[in-house]
């Protein structure tokens, strides 16, 4: 799988602005980032082995399995997953339905525990933590964005965003200040007091992202954040992720079925049948905030 990838010593911090818009079409129509190489020689992908030396790993899993017992049948949702994700990564996870993407995300997000294997988050063994400590980690280190948004209906967006801060024991004034900032960041500065059910799908997802950002976590995990949105709105979300990744250095991992979305990521991990089948780094990923198709 990795054989067809060019190795490159170029550092990953690249100028996305350098890409011209007409580059996008053939790329987007391809079967994914790693195939871009075949169609266009100007693209570089690289094995992330190089960058391991440079950057600090925030997520390290070794031999993670997850088994569900359904009566007599045993279902291996994950069968030995080793991944390492570095600070500042922008990772898309792709794979067919039922391949274990959500299962993996939930484990990485400390929402679920693996059946076996080890998981280190920021160098700390997650298996050794009790439920309260895990809740603390979910609150402080991780921002989770769900496909179905999971907002509190009939609650103003600013209150929705403020919820994690309540559990972080942040005082009322500070809370609303930070919630407002987070909403401004996702471009909803004018929708602070709209109730969640009065917003469009894209806006709701942005509120959900603001809620994930508000605690200023190191990692944002998003399970099909654009799955319920049209491609234009999906691009807006993608642009937001790129901006957060570039400006704040947040590590962002998300699941998507859409190759166009994935083409905006630095790294694409492919998963099938509970195993990693591909892990490619794209040097010249697209700028979601500029592309024609994704233009707001």
């Amino acid at each position: 799988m990795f054989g067809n990838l060019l190795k490159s010593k170029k550092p990953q911090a690249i100028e996305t602005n350098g890409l011209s818009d007409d580059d996008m079409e053939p790329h987007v129509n391809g079967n994914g980032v790693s195939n871009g190489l075949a169609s266009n020689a100007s693209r570089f992908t690289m094995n992330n082995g190089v960058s391991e030396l440079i950057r600090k790993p925030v997520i390290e899993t070794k031999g993670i399995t997850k088994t569900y017992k359904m009566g007599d049948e045993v279902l291996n949702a994950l069968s030995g997953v080793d991944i390492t994700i570095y600070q500042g990564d922008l990772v898309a996870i792709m794979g067919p339905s039922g391949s274990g993407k959500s299962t993996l995300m939930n484990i990485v997000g400390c929402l679920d525990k693996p059946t076996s294997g080890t998981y280190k988050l920021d160098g700390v063994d997650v298996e050794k933590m009790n439920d309260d400590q895990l809740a603390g980690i979910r609150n402080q280190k991780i921002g989770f964005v769900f496909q179905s948004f999971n907002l509190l209906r009939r609650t103003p967006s600013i209150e929705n965003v403020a919820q994690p801060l309540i559990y972080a024991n942040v005082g009322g004034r500070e809370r609303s200040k930070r919630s407002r900032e987070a909403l401004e960041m996702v471009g909803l500065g004018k929708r602070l007091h709209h109730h969640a059910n009065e917003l469009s799908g894209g806006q709701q997802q942005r509120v959900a992202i603001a809620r994930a950002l508000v605690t200023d976590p190191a990692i944002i995990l998003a399970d099909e954040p654009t799955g319920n949105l049209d491609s234009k709105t999906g691009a807006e979300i993608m642009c937001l992720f790129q901006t957060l990744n570039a400006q704040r250095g947040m590590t962002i991992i998300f699941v998507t079925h859409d190759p166009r979305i994935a083409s905006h990521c630095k790294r694409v991990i492919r998963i099938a049948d509970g195993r990693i089948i591909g892990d490619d780094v794209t040097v010249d990923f697209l700028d979601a905030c500029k592309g024609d198709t994704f233009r707001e």
Partner: protein
Amino acid sequence: MLFELLKLAIRTLRANGARSVLTMLGITIGVGAVITLLAVGTGVQKYINDQFSSAGTNLVAVQAGRAQRGPGGGGFGTQAAITIDDYRAIVAGVTGVTDHAADFSRAATFVYNAKNSEVNVQGVTASYLTVRNIAMGEGRFFEEGDEQARARVVVLGPTVVNDLFPDEEPIDKMVRLNGVPFKVIGVLAPRGKSLFGDQDATAMIPLATAHERVFATQARTPNGDLRLNTIMLQTVDEKARLAVKQNISDILRVRHRLPDDEENDFTVLTSAELIDAFGAVTGVLTAFLGAIASISLLVGGIGIMNIMLVSVTERTREIGLRKAIGARSRLVLMQFLIEAMFLSLLGGIIGVIIGVVGAKAIEYFASFTTVVQLPAVLLAVGFSLLVGLFFGIYPARRASQLNPIDALRYE
């Protein structure tokens, strides 16, 4: 944090307005019923105390027949009677008594100005007013001399005056009792209704006059003795009561020639005993009413539990989300507990208001004093909080133990 959870609870309850109100209703009705019924019970108790203490607590009363299980216990024996000779013997033989009185009362036809009515006529000794602690309205009461002279003088209760002399001055008017002419010499001060009826619907005449002139045919026993309804003695103090009671018993048993194995054919009651007896009855009544009302509180509590369980199921995804964004189990538990307790506390407070209004309404429409006591209010409010806590714990625990992943997946 507690404050945040409280705000959250209020917002959630407001968002589900109709349901919250209906849930609260159970507790509200329960607490309202407890408050009102306790107020009525306490009112009855207070009323009885007032009744008897107005008659003086050092009073000992002797009546014919055997009282069966306390006051109002019904049937006095019929054959035995107490007589004026018993009265004299008691007065002569009992020590520790400051004053005494006796009465003989029957219904009589009362005629004035061609107006005819049936009135309870009490033949009483001149001392009756003092012993019973009754005040005069106008005119005078009769004296020993009137009694010895079997004077045909009558003192009327206010109800009789209202009925028969609506716009006339009754004093010095001539009336007829069972056909015997009488002169009205006074009117009693109003005393109001008692447990046994209107105390003001009475006409008092000297005992001897009643015996000899008005009720001559009914006044004598087969042996020719003059009957009495009640003998009343005022003891020097509370402590003398029991001794006096025993003393009377001894004298009457000898006079009535009762063998040792036979029970008294008369009843000696003290006012304190009456208060106690009534107090016991009303106490049981109050407890009974309270118990019934508590059952409705219990039902209200089950209603809260029911709704909270529904709420937990309905909000499974919310719970999953809260856990996913870092709520610890204990906080989720507290959130639901606070919701349940807030709901029941609010229901309880509204219940107290409704209960007090209910008690006042009873007082207004039934002209009956009710007493809302602070301890009862605190008890009811505290109890409703406990109901919320007790019935909220199970749903709250269910919520807090949800696994975030399963909860988020819940449809």
